[in-house]
């Protein structure tokens, strides 16, 4: 069943086009990576789907409902959650307060405490620091908190923008492993922005490549990773996103 349908979506910042007609589909329970060089429109795509920026053309459907043009707070009620690039943690709120901000839209109030406990289970450091100001957390801990906070709205589809940004490799692996575990547990549909095909291939899933605001590639993450590896072997250590792009 199609969870998310994006049809010919366009975004402009003034006269500058950021997204030039993107069409893609996401099946229920699927894991899709969106890759591409800087400025390819990855973040714009996520923001437009979530209603944080308005699109100039095209439409977005979630479970068959058209959500284009609705406000971000309305779209959140359809069961879509977004973890933005740079986390956007509420640094003046405590860790637990951060988790609770998104629970206002839930009908199943009695399940909230259980979900918080589950997130502390997945990320024990958050439980230990539940009463600390979120601004005092390290970058990796903030990423964990951002994911936990995104889950607290009880979404059906979660979009995570570059969870690996600025994190040490072992922390990145930990974050991804937990994301995958949570996805399987909850039957989540995931859309993740990830520059590195190798990291995407490690956890597995489909991958879409964006360039210049358009989809230029679609396939299995492992295939992208293989091509990137081959490129690397022939041409040395190149920037991974660039080599993914050249591989096509």
């Amino acid at each position, binding site marked *: 069943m199609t969870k998310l349908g994006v049809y010919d979506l366009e975004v402009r910042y003034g006269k500058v086009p950021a997204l030039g007609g993107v069409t893609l589909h996401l099946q229920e329970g699927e894991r899709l990576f969106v890759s591409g060089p800087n400025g390819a429109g990855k973040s714009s795509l996520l923001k437009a789907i*979530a*209603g*944080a920026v308005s699109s100039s053309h095209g439409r977005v459907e979630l479970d068959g409902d058209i959500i284009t043009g609705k*406000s*971000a*707070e309305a779209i*959140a*009620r359809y069961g879509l*959650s*977004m973890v*933005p690039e*740079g*986390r*956007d*943690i*509420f*640094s*003046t*709120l405590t860790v637990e*307060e951060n988790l*609770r*901000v*998104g629970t*206002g*839209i839930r009908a199943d109030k009695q399940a909230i405490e259980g979900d918080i406990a589950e997130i502390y289970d997945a990320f024990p450091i958050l439980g230990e620091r539940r009463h600390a*100001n979120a*601004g*005092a*957390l*390290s*970058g990796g801990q*903030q990423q964990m908190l951002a994911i936990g*906070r*995104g889950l*607290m*709205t009880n979404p059906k589809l979660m979009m995570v923008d570059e969870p690996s*940004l*600025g994190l040490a490799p072992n922390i990145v692996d930990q974050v991804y492993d937990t994301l995958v575990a949570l996805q399987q547990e909850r039957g989540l549909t995931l859309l993740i922005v990830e520059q590195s095909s190798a990291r995407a291939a490690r956890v597995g899933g489909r991958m879409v490549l964006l360039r210049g605001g358009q989809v230029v590639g679609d396939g299995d993450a492992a295939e992208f990773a293989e091509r990137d590896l081959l490129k690397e072997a022939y041409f040395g250590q190149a920037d991974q996103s660039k080599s993914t792009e050249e591989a096509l």
Partner: protein
Amino acid sequence: MNAVPQLFFDAASLGGIYAMAALGIALIFGVMNLVNFAHGEYIAFCVFALIVPSSDAVAVMFLGKAPAILLIPVLLAFGALIAVASEYVVFRQLRNANPVAMMISSFALGFVIQNALLAVYGSRPKAISLWPDLNTPVSVVGASVPLLQLIVIITTLLVVSVLALLLKKTRVGLEMRAAAENFTMARLLGVRANVVITGAFALSGAMAAAVAMIMVTQTGVADVRMGGQIMLVAFIATVIGGLGSLPGAVAAGFLIGAVSVVLQAALPLEARPFRDAFLYTLVIVSLLLRPQGLFASASAKPRV
């Protein structure tokens, strides 16, 4: 008479008024980056809501006749109502405008309210006597203090603690704090922008009503222009406190009250008429030394 306790009570009660007015401004700035210059006019509006509309020199009590137990909640609701109504009529239409446009509109809104009051009540200041008994002095730790001063101090502490509790313990308080830090992120988590903004305006308007009651009891005058003066001081308090910081606004409100009372007492007699010049010089110095505000937190920086 004992000079030091006297000074303390003067400073704390004046500072309390400034702090409450500053809180009203900081609340709205916090959630929507708007310095609402109409806030002083909300105060004036609440004062005039107490009396019968007429342009006579002596005010006839209207709402002011009601017993305190009724008057206080009704006037607080009145303040909340005008603030929420002005948000609905003016600021909601400008939700996506830039902050400067919104600020200018708040000036315009202030003038509209002020001129409406002028049209109905005339321009002459009116004598008004709300709760005159509260000005009888009582003796506290050797100082002779009008009862009202004590009430102001207690009220301020009460209002600040209730507000802190509201922000800390309630759902809408949590949403307001989240929205104050990052409105877009809060909305992505399903926080309704209109609920948060309406809540902030209602609280801010109620705060204006509280200030109105205190000012009227203290001065015994209803003047259409009374909002301007307090608005100026309150605005300065929010800037010195660090724009958007609620504890900062309260602290700076008390600080300005204290400094102006101390200056009044300490300056040589010939210099006293120029007290405000000294006060605002200190304001400039404080802004030169800490342009981000005296109480701005350093923890608000994002991490990579």
